[in-house]
């Protein structure tokens, strides 16, 4: 039933508009509830759509619905159309389901903030944008959603606009994403020129049918990949993600766990025929993912900010998804996307409870021993951590191992490289995840000076119910969410996605079980290393040189500053001094002065002496008469 999908798309937009229009007439809490309910209404729509799709034949699960055609130029037509297929439905359910829980949680978390209404309106707008992205029935609508997501994330990351860091982070995220968006738009222009359409069907047909040159295909795929890399914070366009932690914690959970950063993975899976026609670019995606998951894993080892550790972990996990999509294991990429949305949102929200409790403290050196005072947060965060590390039977175990086995099944040098990177990444994951968990929840409470006393007075409360229920729900999902796809038993999810994007690699049962065992062992080993370091009271990375490099996040910011920002600044200064001031500004002044001088000259003729005018006219008439007579 297609109306469910339309409801899913427009309910959050309705919520955003309602909150904006109502303004001060509704209370802040009411704004929170409108936002939450609008997203959950979207979830209901997605569920209706999902259930009705389940009732169809596997071959008949794709529905395209066009509201109207809003852009037509010659043969080129684009309509407001939505596509509902298993892939879109998966994203719709995750975005509205996890998103709804996060917005709900925000009611408690944001309570008492200034400008709560703006917050909730923007959250709903963000969910709408993300839905537009995943439901868009053609590439142009996808790009519209893509851009709107960038805008909404800009607004949310910069929510604390009185803090300069937040504003800078918002701008950084926006600009980095704009780079990707521009590359993507260029790819689309190329498609319009060569195919004459942005419909998924026609584009994929052209890509697969061999009607396009390999250069075109490679360029289009590169454009798409650049967009995906920017949105998903993969190297080299990743530097915005850690900074984006300046936004409120639920925003981090929404944008950086469940929705926006996974859009890149969705894009690759959605446009997989283009990538399959340009295998070089697709492998590049896998390599980018592998490099990102390693770099992010290493950097996460030395971060002190609780949210930044989780942010780097997100980058790393999305690296896994890119790896999977890059080798053509689309089902596994989406599988990890779903489970990651569960456990990463859980970790962010649980971290939010901690941060909320500690009055905004995010430095893990000032935490510790919270296990005793915050049992609920402790157990849920532990579930999230273990799911992240990949301990069976929690969600992350199933999805991450599937990706590793797919890398192994790819074979060849590439496959082995990806597999090795993935395994090393799993080791790093175990290390940084346990380090974070141990420093926050175990050991002795750090001397939190004034804070400690203040919080003792708060009692054992860990937050209002509106915060605890969503966290509990996410913990449950993180625990059992992985069971939707179990190798050797059932592969429901893989087949579900396979209706849209057929997997290119299919690991054998032996590879499945083998990698599972290896990955668990490696993850546990990483965790044990972290535990030993913790009990001995030392850091994980002790080499001073390596430590400095990691603390500077491999100098990416510094590099970009030197390569892009500073030269641009210099060029801009030169242009201003040498071109704008003398040429543009100078010529404008000249034109003004010239006009004024000419006017003064003409004004002198205007004497006000009536008889002079009369004489001039008479004389002119005489001259004209003479001329006419002479000409005749």
């Amino acid at each position: 039933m297609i109306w469910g999908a339309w409801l899913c798309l427009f309910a959050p937009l309705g919520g955003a508009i309602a909150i904006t229009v109502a303004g001060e007439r509704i209370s802040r809490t009411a704004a929170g509830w409108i936002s939450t309910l609008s997203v959950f209404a979207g979830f209901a729509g997605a569920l209706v759509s999902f259930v009705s799709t389940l009732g169809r034949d596997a071959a008949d699960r794709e529905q395209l619905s066009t509201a109207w055609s809003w852009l037509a130029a010659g043969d080129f037509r684009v309509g407001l159309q939505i596509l509902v297929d298993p892939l879109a439905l998966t994203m719709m359910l995750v975005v509205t389901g996890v998103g709804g829980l996060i917005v709900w949680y925000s009611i408690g978390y944001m309570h008492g903030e200034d400008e709560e209404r703006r917050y909730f309106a923007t959250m709903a707008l963000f969910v709408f944008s993300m839905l537009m992205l995943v439901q868009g029935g053609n590439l142009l609508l996808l790009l519209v959603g893509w851009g709107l997501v960038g805008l909404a994330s800009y607004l949310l990351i910069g929510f604390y606009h009185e803090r300069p860091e937040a504003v800078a982070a918002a701008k950084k995220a926006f600009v980095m994403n704009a780079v990707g968006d521009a590359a993507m738009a260029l790819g689309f222009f190329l498609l319009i020129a060569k195919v004459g359409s942005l419909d998924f069907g026609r584009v994929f047909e052209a890509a697969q049918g061999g009607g396009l040159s390999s250069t075109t295909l490679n360029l289009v795929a590169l454009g798409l990949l650049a967009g995906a890399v920017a949105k998903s914070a993969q190297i080299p366009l990743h530097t915005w993600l850690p900074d984006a932690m300046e936004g409120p914690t639920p925003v981090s959970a929404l944008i950086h766990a469940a929705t926006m950063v996974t859009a890149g993975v969705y894009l690759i899976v959605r446009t997989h025929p283009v990538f399959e026609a340009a295998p070089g670019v697709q492998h590049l995606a896998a390599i980018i993912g592998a490099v990102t998951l390693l770099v992010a894993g290493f950097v996460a080892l030395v971060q002190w900010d609780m949210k930044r550790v989780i942010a780097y972990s997100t980058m790393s996990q999305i690296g896994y998804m890119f790896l999977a999509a890059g080798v053509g294991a689309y089902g596994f990429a989406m599988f990890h996307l779903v489970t990651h949305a569960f456990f990463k949102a859980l970790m962010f929200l649980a971290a939010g409870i901690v941060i909320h409790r500690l009055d905004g403290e995010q430095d893990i050196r000032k935490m510790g021993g919270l296990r005793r005072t915050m049992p609920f947060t402790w157990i849920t965060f532990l579930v999230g951590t273990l799911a992240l590390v990949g301990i069976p039977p929690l969600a992350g175990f199933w999805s991450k191992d599937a990706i590793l086995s797919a890398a192994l099944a790819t074979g060849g040098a590439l496959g082995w490289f990806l597999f090795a990177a993935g395994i090393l990444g799993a080791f790093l994951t175990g290390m940084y995840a346990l380090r974070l968990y141990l420093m926050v929840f175990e050991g002795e409470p750090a001397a939190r000076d004034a804070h400690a006393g203040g919080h003792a007075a708060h009692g054992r409360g860990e937050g209002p119910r509106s915060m605890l229920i969503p966290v509990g729900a996410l913990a449950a999902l993180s625990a059992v969410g992985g069971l939707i796809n179990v190798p050797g038993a059932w592969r429901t999810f893989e087949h579900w996605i396979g209706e849209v994007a057929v997997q290119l690699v299919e690991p054998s049962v032996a590879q499945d079980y083998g990698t599972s065992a290896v990955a668990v062992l490696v993850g546990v080993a990483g965790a044990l290393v972290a535990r030993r370091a913790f009990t001995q009271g030392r850091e994980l990375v002790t080499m001073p040189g390596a430590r400095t490099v990691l603390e500077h996040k491999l100098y990416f910011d510094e590099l970009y500053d030197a390569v892009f920002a500073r030269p641009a600044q210099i060029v801009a200064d030169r242009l201003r001094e040498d071109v704008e001031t003398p040429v543009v500004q100078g010529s404008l002044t000249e034109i003004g002065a010239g006009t004024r001088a000419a006017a003064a000259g003409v004004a002198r003729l205007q004497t006000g002496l009536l008889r002079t005018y009369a004489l001039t006219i008479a004389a002119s008439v005489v001259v004209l008469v003479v001329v006419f007579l002479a000409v005749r």
Partner: protein
Amino acid sequence: MLGPGVPWYLAVSGVLFAIGATGVLLRRSPLIVLLSLEIMLNASNLALVGFSRLLGAVDGQVFAIGVMAVAAAEVTVGLGLIVAFARRDMELDVDALTELRG
């Protein structure tokens, strides 16, 4: 056709026009300037009517009536201005009235 021919009318018209133009150019009183303008307009009217007779068409006569109407309107405005000047005790001299110069 009885009476003088069209060239005579045109000659009178030319003389009248010259007299009017001289008056406009040489006299300084705005009243006389207006009078001279009227003479010029009437010289034109005379030429129009003369040509009208010559060609046996009434167009010229209709134009002449149009010119008279415009002349009347112009004189009304001109006299109004002159009365306004007189009320403000300003010199009635077109050379002195240069307030509107650029």
